[in-house]
């Protein structure tokens, strides 16, 4: 929990849940596990507000609770999760991915579940059907069955999962965790169960939802009444109380990672090789665990059979492509055996490392110029080099090379390593070597990215605050215009209202909108870099 991460989490919490939740959240993130009274006292917040904030945080999975340190009798302790809060930054990307994979229905399902933290299946289906009906033209409405089928597709491909059951607190005799039926009190002291530990994690509940989406109309009241009564009846008859569904972020991350690898192959080699890699990754979607270093071996025969039908390449050409991929220095694909026409794996870990390395190199290039980037790449490949050797290998004059090296050194992208010749470490008799360590540099860059996003959010808030008066005025005028149009006013009245905003104000508003769009768009794009670096660092942790 670095300072930058906590700052960014605080800003995200403030934007989405308000200042009260932000105060409680940052306090938990900084202070570790605490109980209710401590939080209330240390943040000087009324107890009720603390309770509400904790409910919100737990609802969204940002906070977990467990029995206290002193055993089952002590008060409940709450722990906030920095990682989960940072996911909020990536919500648009998750929703867009769901849209590309499963259409508008899938998009709305994922959006609803993300906004509410976790929901039951029946609730989700009803809300999504209503929203879809609202967007359709008059007279048509959305069948529940279509939404249910989209929902089940999402669950089958593991994009949605059941929320883990809550462990019993205190000295309860029975454990609510179905995976471990035999351990009564011991479950209270173990770590909270993850979603994956539940064997029913991806099983749909047996509920039949029959009905259509309801259109919300302010004029047509009769449908509302019936709708209201019907909703009451439906919620009582649905049998899936207590089964909540949440978004499986890991699965989405797997998808993003695959996309990154495929696009890297496409830009380095060509479209056909990227299709081959895509096929290989698709075939090993379910057999590869989250933290695997490489996929399960696939034989060339299997790959040939599973290629998409519009990519009709012959068998020897496929073999050539595969050997090309294996020989490529990026090492995306490796050969693990010769049976079945050759067994091939996709090296996930190495691919991630190479992608992270490419990101680092491009950052150095954009900030310091291509010659500094050349020195950086040299040091990445050759590991340790003396000053003189750097100048020679990079083919850069001594003075400039020295300058660039020192700039990189002051930014901590390059480190100095001493190697003494004598035991007394005399400086005249010591080698000083320049080196680059990829993993610490990636961490450094990740922290820079968090700081960047936090700065972007702060700047956006500042811009909004500066022009608050103007924004409020324009909102009021829009509301007036809308109500006038709804009640059927003449065009003169409309233009009169529109002229209440003067031309320079309009320009100012336009510039403000442009700035805010730019800042928002930048946040989204920095988040892509954040994802890549986070995946790389995470893949190196689990050895």
């Amino acid at each position, binding site marked *: 929990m670095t300072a930058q991460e906590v700052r960014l989490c605080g800003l995200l919490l403030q934007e989405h849940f308000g200042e009260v939740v932000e105060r409680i959240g940052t306090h938990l993130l900084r202070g570790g596990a605490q109980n209710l009274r401590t939080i209330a006292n240390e943040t000087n917040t009324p107890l009720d507000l603390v309770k509400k904030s*904790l409910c919100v945080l737990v609802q969204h999975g940002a906070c977990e609770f467990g029995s206290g340190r002193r055993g089952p009798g002590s008060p409940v302790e709450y722990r906030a999760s920095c990682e989960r809060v940072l996911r909020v930054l990536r919500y648009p990307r998750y929703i867009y991915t769901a849209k590309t994979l499963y259409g508008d229905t899938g998009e709305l399902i994922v959006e609803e579940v993300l906004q509410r933290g976790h929901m039951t299946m029946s609730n989700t289906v009803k809300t999504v059907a209503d929203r879809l009906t609202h967007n359709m033209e008059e007279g048509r409405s959305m069948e529940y069955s279509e939404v249910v089928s989209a929902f089940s597709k999402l669950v089958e491909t593991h994009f949605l999962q059941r929320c883990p059951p809550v462990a019993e607190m205190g000295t309860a005799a029975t454990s609510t965790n179905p995976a471990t039926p035999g351990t009564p009190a011991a479950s209270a002291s173990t770590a909270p169960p993850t979603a994956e530990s539940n064997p029913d994690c991806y099983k749909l509940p047996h509920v039949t939802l029959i009905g259509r989406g309801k259109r919300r109309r302010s004029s047509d009241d009769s449908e509302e009444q019936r709708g209201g009564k019907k909703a009451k009846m439906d919620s009582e008859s649905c049998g899936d109380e207590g089964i909540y569904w949440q978004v499986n972020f890991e699965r989405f991350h797997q998808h993003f990672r695959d996309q990154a690898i495929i696009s890297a192959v496409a830009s380095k080699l060509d479209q056909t090789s990227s299709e081959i890699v895509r096929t290989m990754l698709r075939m090993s979607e379910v057999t590869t665990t989250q933290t695997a270093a490489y996929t399960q071996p696939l034989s060339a025969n299997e790959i040939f059979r599973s290629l998409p039908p519009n990519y009709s390449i012959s068998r020897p050409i496929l073999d050539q492509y595969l050997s090309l991929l294996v020989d490529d220095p990026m090492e995306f694909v490796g050969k693990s055996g010769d049976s079945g026409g050759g067994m091939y794996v996709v090296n996930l870990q190495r691919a991630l490392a190479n992608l992270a390395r490419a990101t680092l190199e491009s950052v150095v290039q954009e900030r310091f110029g291509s010659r500094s980037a050349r020195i950086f790449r040299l040091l990445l490949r050759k590991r340790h080099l003396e000053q003189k050797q750097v100048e020679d290998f990079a083919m850069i004059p001594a003075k400039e090379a020295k300058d660039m090296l020192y700039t990189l050194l002051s930014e901590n992208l390059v480190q100095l390593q001493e190697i003494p010749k004598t035991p007394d470490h005399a400086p005249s008799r010591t080698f000083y070597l320049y080196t680059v360590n990829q993993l610490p540099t990636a961490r450094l860059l990740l922290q820079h990215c968090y700081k960047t996003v936090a700065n972007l959010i702060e700047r956006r808030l500042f811009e909004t605050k500066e022009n608050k008066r103007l924004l409020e005025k324009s909102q009021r005028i829009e509301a007036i215009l809308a109500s006038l149009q709804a009640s059927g006013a003449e065009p003169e009245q409309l233009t009169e209202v529109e002229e209440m905003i003067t031309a320079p104000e309009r320009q100012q508003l336009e510039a403000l909108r442009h700035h805010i769009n730019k800042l928002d768009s930048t946040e989204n794009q920095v988040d892509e870099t954040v994802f890549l670096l986070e995946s790389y660092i995470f893949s190196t942790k689990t050895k």
Partner: protein
Amino acid sequence: MRSLSASYLTNAFSNRLIPMAGRGRGRGRGQMTFNLEDVGIGRGDSLPPTTFKPSPLFPPMPVQPVPLQTGEEVEYMLALKQELRAATKTLPFYIRRAAPKRDVDRYSDKYQSGEPKDSTIEWSPDWSRLPKELCIKVRENRGKRPTPQVKRTKKPLVGKEEILIKLETLEKKEEAVNSEEEQDEEKKKTNEEEEQADEEDYEEDFEEDTDYIMSYFDNGEEFGGDSDDNMDEATY
């Protein structure tokens, strides 16, 4: 193996740190415990000036950053992000502090309860998934279920029947008010959420159980106190 940092190097060359600066060989730079050439600083080279203050907050950029990506995907995600941000403000998860209490209790407090209160929660979570100490009263809205519906269906009726129906609904309202006051502060059913959602569709007039239309209701606070003196003027 220790590794050196850049600041150590730059400070080492500053004359201020070495007390015997200027004496001995090498005018301009002091004697150092290691050979300068090894680190790469030749004999005649001049070093950049020592810094006396921290680096500026917005240093001038030597190169301009790469322009942002554009395209349909980027635009769509931007729109999504802004919509999400706007939507979260309206959800019950956005916790606002209750406005500080006004000095005197007012009649309108009973009917204008749109403000969030500290002691109630706006949505009903599944209490079985939360520790018991977090249990807090779920906010109930003051709208009554049966009365507005009855009013609606009987709207087109005119004359005697309407008056009879009105009397009936007033009776029901009174009952509902009584029953509500007798209710316990127990957990609410989950369908209350749906009821709340439906309720928002009703026009504002029917939200409170008064016959007054709320938008016309005037607290009387904004009315200036100084116009009592001169009653000759017409009131507008």
